[in-house]
């Protein structure tokens, strides 16, 4: 038992150190992605309204006219593509995921600028498993979480351990998900 306790502490401590960064990555992105219906976790969106008198009907000079509009509201260098979703609207795509919608009749311009959220964009990118190597690494991390749970049972002896306070916390932590399953499943 003494040996098991010793090795539980060593593994819990050292693997814990190794995965501090990964834990923060998954913790942050977990919160961010849990609230997808409340916000866009990857981009902050800035909407700007204005108006234009430039002719943006589908004519031979449309691309030039779109570029003139972009000179006014953004920069022609950011132009990507445009199309007409319906007869009275043109949608212009800009680099970086931003876009501009113009009502051809009224000239109302709605520009939606997307800006990557620092830190969140990067941690979410990793959370979504960008490639196979990361998948293996995150599998290793997940296996380590299981190991942390198991080693924590043996780490501390006495009334603060699994036979005392630790046991109560463990039971509570198991009961909460069980209750959710009973109520919602």
């Amino acid at each position, binding site marked *: 038992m003494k040996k098991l306790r010793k090795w539980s502490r060593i593994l819990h401590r050292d693997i814990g150190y190794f995965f501090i960064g990964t834990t923060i990555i998954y913790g942050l992105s977990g919160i961010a992605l849990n609230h*997808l*219906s409340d916000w*866009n976790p*990857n*981009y902050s969106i800035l909407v700007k309204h204005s108006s234009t008198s430039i002719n943006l009907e*589908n004519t031979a000079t449309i691309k030039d006219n779109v570029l003139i509009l972009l000179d006014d509201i953004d920069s022609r260098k950011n132009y*990507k*593509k445009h*199309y*007409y*979703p319906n007869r009275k609207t043109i*949608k212009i*795509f*800009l*680099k*970086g*995921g931003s*876009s501009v919608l113009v009502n051809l009749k009224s000239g109302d311009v709605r520009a939606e600028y997307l800006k990557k959220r620092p830190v969140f964009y990067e941690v979410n990118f990793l959370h*979504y498993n960008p490639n196979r190597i990361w998948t293996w690494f995150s599998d290793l991390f997940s296996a380590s979480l299981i190991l942390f749970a198991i080693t924590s049972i043996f780490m501390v002896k006495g009334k603060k351990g699994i036979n005392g306070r630790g046991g109560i916390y463990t039971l509570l932590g198991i009961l909460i998900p069980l209750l959710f399953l009973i109520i919602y499943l």
Partner: protein
Amino acid sequence: MKKIIFILAMAILVFACKTETKKAEDKQQQVESKTETPLLALGEFETKAGDFVNKEVKIQGIVDHVCKHSGKKLLVVTDDGKVHITSDTRFNDELQGSEVSLTGIVLEERIDEAYCLKMEEDNIKSHSEGKSNKDQFDQKKEHIQQYRDQMKAESIDYISSYSLQYVSHTEIK
């Protein structure tokens, strides 16, 4: 030394020949795939897709939207039409606004009364659990009603909705 150089030269020669053969094979395959995969204009996708269910087709258009939730859905558009794309892997956000030539397998989804009822049930559940707001709930409700109105107006039991299962794409610069 001479022997080593000779062996190396032979190895390079064999490798070069093999690469050439592979290139030629690839080229041939490309030509074959070009002749085999029909190109559907998005303007006629809804009317023609029915002839290609479970078959590969090619489309061309602008990526209007990459699903922010899963990242595995695209909406590809032109002035004349649109098509939804689903994939097993995530798309890069940067694809939004790019013109693409995309190959996919045509999928058919039949929307009938049972489907509408299921959508209705899911919509209520999702709203009651706070997963969708009032606007999203109303939009979906209206959408379901539109399906019912269309079936009634055309006296049909189901509406076929077509989408593409992603296979590959190339960006058109």
